[in-house]
């Protein structure tokens, strides 16, 4: 048994031209969240509580695309989704289409604990939130000025180019992407909002947990569900490990990415890092994504196949790292 370990992420696929002060702000936020997790682990909180606590903090901060600061739908509204899973017993909860709940991850936890179901969505999820008396706010609370501007750029990019996918050769016609030929989720990376936050934890007793929360895709259709709330896709935890993914949702869903890390450990006997590397290489096809993972032995690992991932990790023996690039 290797003690506790924690990993957090704030999305994969980062604009290489992201201003340095934004990079620093991201690192500071990740460090703050890691420290919250670390002190919770030192106080012997169970893994499931720690992942919820850390993701709540990320949701409350407008920097990343979850909770406050969520990406906007094509109608300019926010529709958030989240999921949480506890390794022991593989209990899980998920929500989609949440519009007023301040902390979607905590609502997902309540679905797990207080409902007969595992997954509630849209008006039913909102109704459940009111029944449970969780904190709700006006939808405007989640909308930031930055994201209103991003939505405008995303709409411009989409009206110039066919469908939602932007062929790389067409980028010179798109003012939003002149500086960067990189595309994430069909959007020029400078427009694409850093995706999804997540946290994976193994506590001192070897219990793993994972949680993921997101506003989804900038300019998404209303009603669109991505990988984050889907158990086995964006989030998964079992006795062996805890995993949270981020990136192009559709590729993650097709690859059942989070479960896959656990599956190759379980069925092929891979170690954690080996499993993460295998999954990133073999299960994503053309898709761009990243993931963080912890094992019950107190290991921590991450992997991605795109430009940069906001992430941080720490282990009980004093190791701590926060980074964006290779």
């Amino acid at each position, binding site marked *: 048994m290797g003690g506790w370990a924690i990993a957090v992420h704030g999305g994969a696929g980062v604009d290489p031209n992201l201003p340095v002060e934004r990079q620093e702000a991201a690192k500071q936020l990740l460090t703050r969240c890691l420290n919250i997790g670390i002190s919770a682990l030192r106080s012997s909180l169970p893994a499931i509580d720690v992942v919820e606590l850390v993701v709540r903090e990320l949701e409350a901060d407008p920097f990343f695309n979850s909770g406050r600061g969520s990406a906007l739908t094509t109608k300019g509204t926010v529709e958030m989704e989240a999921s949480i899973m506890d390794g022991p017993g593989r209990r899980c909860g998920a929500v989609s289409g949440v519009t007023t709940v301040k902390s979607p991850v905590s609502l997902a936890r309540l679905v797990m604990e207080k409902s007969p179901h595992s997954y509630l969505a849209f008006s039913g999820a909102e109704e459940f939130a009111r029944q449970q008396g969780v904190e709700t706010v006006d939808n405007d609370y989640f909308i930031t000025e930055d994201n209103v501007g991003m939505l405008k750029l995303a709409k411009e990019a989409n009206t110039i180019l066919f469908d939602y996918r932007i062929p790389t050769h067409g980028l010179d016609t798109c003012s939003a992407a002149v500086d960067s030929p990189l595309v994430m989720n069909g959007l020029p990376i400078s427009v694409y909002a850093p995706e999804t936050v997540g946290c994976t934890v193994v506590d001192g007793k070897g219990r793993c947990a994972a949680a993921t929360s997101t506003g989804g895709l900038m300019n998404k259709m209303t009603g669109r569900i991505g990988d984050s709330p889907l158990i086995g896709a964006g989030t998964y935890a079992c006795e062996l490990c805890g995993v949270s993914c981020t990136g192009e949702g559709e590729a993650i*869903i097709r690859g059942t990415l989070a479960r896959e890390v656990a599956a190759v450990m379980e069925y092929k006997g891979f170690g954690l890092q080996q499993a993460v590397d295998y999954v990133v290489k073999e299960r994503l096809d053309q898709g761009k994504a990243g993931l963080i993972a912890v094992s019950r032995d107190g290991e921590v690992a991450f992997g991605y196949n795109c430009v940069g991932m906001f992430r941080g990790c720490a282990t009980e023996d004093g190791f701590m790292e926060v980074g964006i690039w290779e």
Partner: protein
Amino acid sequence: MGWAIALHGGAGDIPLNLPPERREPREAALRHCLDIGVRELENYPHFNAGKGSVLTSDGTVEMEACIMDGRTKKCGAVSGLTTVVNAISLARLVMEKTPHIYLAFDGAEAFAREQGVETTDKSHFVTSENIERLKQAKEANRVQIDYTQPIPKEPTKETTVADGDSQIGTVGCVAVDNQGNLATATSTGGLVNKMVGRIGDTPIIGAGTYANSLCAVSATGRGESIMRATVARDVAALMEYKGFSLEEAAAYVVGECAPKGTAGLVAVSAKGEVTMQFNTTGMFRACATEDGYSEIAIWPSV
């Protein structure tokens, strides 16, 4: 190698004394649908999908469905549909006509209208039998998943009520053509007296539905258990990572991964094999292969 097809109409605690008038129409429907697939099953009120979908606690119908093509791994899913006649066909349109995989509730309904698919009044899906089921479930004050028989009202039969949970009615179809192309589709109305907004395993890729180049799987049963056991993907994962045969992989998942009494599945492999397994009392199921084999059954075959 040849084509093969398998269907299910739900797994659960199907009473061995299920009256013929409840059994025979389902068998006839399965027989008929062996020819045409899930879309037809959705139109039979005997199963819990499309017309005949069970009701939420508000007395409404919220349908969900999922489809996946094994060769390309393209997939589409929908949840929270209230007026679309064939949920499975809308899932296919999500796969083919949107940049997304999964649309739900109002957004999915709006997309249906945009695509001009057949819609109908919400009442089309509500059968009087399901109104009665909901009433009984509410009286019993629980999420009722027994779909085959009305709950006995006599309180003396309390234990049968408690054990009588069967998740009957989700429909699914898996097929492999004689080029070895695989596909799967699953469609459901969910659980009787489910909370409004509840999503089950059916529309979730890897849980209720999964296909790749090795096999195609459609699962049915207690959604919450199937979701956490990623039942459909795990059949494929065991073949891929442990070299299990289709039969072995399905047996392992039904025997070891999903708790007893919670799951059933139908699956076909690229080689044209077919398997139908469950850890519940029974599963409405049917299959046929190119070499002329066919089977229609409910309880374990001896």
